[in-house]
């Protein structure tokens, strides 16, 4: 932990240093001649209308919620996957005794030297550990997938949701509208 955080800080400092150097060199050689035209926001040559801090579509919010539901659960798969993989190595009866001892020690989080011989995990029990793990993760995963199916069914992950809804609902006074070809409206931003 100390190692990781320390390295992260040091690496951050190193890269910021490496990026600042060309900017500082540039400060000596680059021009600084701001004009109102240069400073204006680029909107394809037109004068800008209003600020850019505008409201935007809520569908981004739904996508973010789906992400939270999924990603928080996926985090719990990481340690599970590690133990499951170890169990599957141990369930293979072809591995040598040395490997089995080492893997058992890793699994039980004890040094190899301190591992008692009765604690070495056999192939049969590793298989049952794996099977239990599989059942556990199936229950866990199905909860997640039920949620995902619900979101899907509700149409929350359809990007062009409003248009989809308009299409499914019958237009009022359909008979009064002359049959002209209107270009399909698409709200794609």
């Amino acid at each position, binding site marked *: 932990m100390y*190692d990781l955080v*320390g390295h*992260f800080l*040091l*690496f*951050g400092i190193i*890269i*910021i240093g*490496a*990026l600042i150097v*060309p*900017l500082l060199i540039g*400060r000596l050689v*680059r021009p*600084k*001649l*701001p004009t109102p035209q240069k*400073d204006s*926001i*680029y*909107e*394809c040559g037109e004068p*800008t209308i209003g*600020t*850019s*801090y505008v409201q935007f579509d809520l569908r981004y919010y739904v*996508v973010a919620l789906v*992400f939270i539901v*999924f*990603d928080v659960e996926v*985090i719990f*798969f*990481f340690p599970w*996957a*590690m*133990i499951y*993989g*170890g169990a*599957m190595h141990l*369930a*293979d009866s*072809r*591995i040598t*005794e040395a*490997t089995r*001892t*080492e893997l058992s020690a890793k699994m039980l989080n004890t040094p*190899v*030297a301190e591992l008692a011989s009765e604690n070495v995990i056999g*192939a*049969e029990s590793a*298989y049952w550990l*794996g099977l239990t793990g*599989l059942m556990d993760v199936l229950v866990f*995963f199905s909860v997640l997938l039920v949620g*995902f199916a619900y979101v899907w069914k509700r149409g929350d992950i*359809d*990007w062009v949701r409003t248009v989809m809804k308009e299409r499914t609902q019958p237009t009022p006074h359909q008979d009064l509208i002359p049959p002209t070809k209107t270009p399909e409206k698409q709200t*794609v*931003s």
Partner: protein
Amino acid sequence: MNFLPIATNIADYLRDSLGLTNGIAMVLAAIIHGSLLVAIFMGTPVFWIWGERKIAGRIQDRMGPTRVGGRFGWLQSIADGIKLIQKEDLVPPAADSMLFRMAPYMVCVASFATFMVLPFGDTWVAVASDIGLYVLVAILSLEVIGIILAGYSSGSKWSLFGGMREAAQMVSYEIPLAICAIIPVTVAGSLNLVEIAQLQSGGFQNWLIFNDPFTLVAFFVYFTVATASCKRAPFDLAEAESELVGGFHTEYSGMRWSFFFMGEYAAMFVVCAVASILFLGGWNSGIPPLDATLNQMRGLSADGSFEPMAYLANAIGMGILISKAWVLVFVQVWVRWTLPRLRIDQVMITCLKYLIPISCALFLGVIAWPLLVYKMTGGAQTSFASPKAENWVKPAVSTPDEDAETSQFILPNSTPDDRMAVADDDRKVAGGTR
């Protein structure tokens, strides 16, 4: 399964030769490490920006850069860099000045910090963390914050749309990326990238991509998602120049603008290197005799001492890993100049309605596979290949235990000889149980 990372080697050397304290020696070692990695971080974009232009030229029946640096224009990126340094550094008054200046640093810090857990060889890794893959995925997803920050703080509507698209795209693609990263972990039983790569030595049949049908498909899903997560075409909606002018970097100019590309190309390299480590055998060549020789050479420095031959083996391994990653980067470039850009709704549907269900199915498949094999073979084996876990336990690679390693740094008065003695005792104990 334990090993001494190269940082420890450097720290030991500094402490012994210069008489520094442990803390300072470790910090200095980390700085040396970081500086070496900065060279890779900066060198990858310099090469690949030129490479991309050259490849794009060939694909479109043009020449690409030809002028700077001889016939192939191979100095083009350097020339571009010199030009960019001289460019005016504009910050629009409408922009949030501090966030605007900060955003490129965020992107570069995120993509550079992944290098600290990315192994280039058996011991060539800055932090050989037991949760390496997890940390890597976590740090890599920080990059999106820089992009959103750039989009939001620019004060331009194009930038805002670009940033928001990137946010929506990243939060969706993060899910299949994480699930596809878990798939090799369920096979390897380790989150340590060094261990995952060690597992795959001894021939290409041991590569995790060939472990079962699910990992084979998972590699391609991972690669697609990784391409999207570095916002590369056909998923580059954040900077779609035909719709959003420049997307999140519309208002950036000069050096600051180029930092985004440095971060992007470095992230491309990182995801491709991770793909090589997770699925394509890492620094193992895939040729059994060559792998065996290299492993034997690495075994010479099992006690953490400096051995030229082990160094050479690791350098060759690093070359192999980088070549594999570069082949994948080449494919990303190739895809960019071949496929048209998707629309934003198509990008989201590709992820949410196709890639997530596919990756979930692959995940379930890959965890059921070993149990199925176990049943089919009557409880004899869990994979059709030879057991890969054997690759972890080699007498030559056995190194001092975790405890001995940490105790070196706890005991301030221990001399190098003491530490070697501890290491020797430890090896005897470890060897006795085998």
